[in-house]
């Protein structure tokens, strides 16, 4: 890939929630292309470009842990009920207990421990790209930011409470060593990304770990299914 980048990301905790288990969150075994794209976008993104994740190197063994927290659940009450009781100036004094009814929910999260990945990606120009946008320019901006540790907002590993640390892997840099270099495994169907152009339709692909590397098919490839 001529204009590819390689980014080493790691962190102590991560949670890439499986869409079928999102109430009591259970993470996928590895980072999804969608989450990897989010990390790249946290460092540099403009409407003129679109990040495409090509390959994910898994560096650390997959380990899970569980944590249960008090979360806000269904905090909806019917607005018609409210509107009757509410006059503009009295809202200030209207209080309900947050742990009343279903408002407080205790939810467990099955998260990943001690993760490390190398994201290989490139970007394409979108139709929002103007005359002043070139691949080289955005690549330079990304590389400069990643090299200096700059970001737009702190990238995270799935959830914002799990910060992702990152380092750019330069051309002549050593590739971080992987504990899974000999490991191959079928990881099953995994979320590829959300198709925001088509009413936020999720798309899935068959993730296979081969010698510690997952090849990510292009978003519109045949093997990526809705």
């Amino acid at each position, binding site marked *: 890939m001529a204009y590819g980048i390689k980014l080493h990301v790691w962190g102590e905790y991560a949670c890439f929630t499986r869409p079928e288990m999102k109430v009591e969150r259970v993470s996928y075994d590895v980072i999804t292309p969608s989450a990897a794209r989010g990390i790249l976008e946290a460092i540099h993104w403009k409407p003129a470009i679109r990040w495409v994740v090509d390959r994910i190197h898994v560096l650390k063994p997959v380990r899970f842990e569980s944590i249960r927290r008090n979360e806000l659940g269904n905090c909806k009450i019917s*607005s018609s009920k409210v509107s009757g009781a509410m006059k503009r100036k009295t809202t200030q004094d209207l209080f309900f207990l947050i742990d009343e009814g279903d408002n407080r929910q205790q939810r467990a999260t099955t998260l990943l421990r001690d993760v490390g990945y190398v994201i290989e990606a490139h970007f394409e120009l979108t139709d929002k790209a103007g005359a002043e946008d070139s691949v080289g320019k955005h690549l330079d901006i990304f590389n400069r930011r990643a090299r*200096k540790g700059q970001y737009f907002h702190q990238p995270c590993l799935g959830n914002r409470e799990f*910060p992702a640390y990152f380092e750019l892997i330069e051309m002549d840099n050593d590739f971080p060593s992987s504990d899974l270099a000999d490991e191959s495994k079928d990881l099953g169907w995994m979320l590829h990304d959300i198709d925001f152009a088509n009413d936020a339709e999720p798309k899935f692909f068959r993730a296979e770990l081969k010698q510690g590397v997952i090849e990510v098919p292009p978003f519109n490839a045949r093997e990526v299914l809705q």
Partner: protein
Amino acid sequence: MTIQNRYEFVYFFDVTNGNPNGDPDAGNMPRLDPESSKGLVTDVSLKRKIRNFIQLSEENAPGYDIYVQEKSVLNLQNKKAYDALDIKPEAKKLPKDQQKAKEVTDWMCANFFDVRAFGAVMTTEVNSGQVRGPLQLAFAKSIDPIIPLEVSITRMAVTNEKDLEKERTMGRKHIVPYGLYRVHGFVSAKLAEKTGFSDADLEKVWKSLEMMFEHDHSAARGEMSARKLIVFKHDNALGSAPAHKLFERVTVERVNGEDGTPASEFKDYAIHLNTEGLAQMGVEVIEVF
């Protein structure tokens, strides 16, 4: 004026004979990292305390309402935005008019401190949109393993009349004899731009980190206190150095007792900060306390 610089911070607090954060999965025992036996305090637990402190210290100050209160329902708060702007709420959707949608979200940001700082998902029935806040916290972890104690207590009374002859009831408390916890935090100037999070707001965050445990005393907490807050201020909005490299500059040395064993007081630790070359890199170190 929103903040113009990126910040990272390392925050230390400790607990003596108390339970800093109970684990609902383990019968309210102090949270433990099963791998290392180090204590954990979740991000949301600390954010709750920041909110509570702001609510106390900025009582009724305009712009410092707290959205996620311990005693409120979010829709009532959302409704305020609509009322104030005279927009009719539309079920489950943002107002079609983008201009008005932005007004509603901006109004929420301007009036609620926690929406401005932490962000909020306001996609409830009365919808005010979704914002991501600039302030981000990770889990707090203790420096050394902690040994939680289970303390049995008695009460010289019973709840039910039928238990009258029992005369007293027994209860349990879980305490950590001592634990020093370390937290990493991040403040993104670029997200602050979007929510209007200002330098004055940031000062209040530092203040709340310093003072919040003073107003959170309870039977369960024991003695908790803020010990140290080291802030790294970058000279620009995007930052001048990787966060992990800055965090590595703050090290904790065990000066009494052996590494990897539970400590008994704050004096058992020395916190070191290596500032070498930071100024040239464009990072200013502020030791808030």
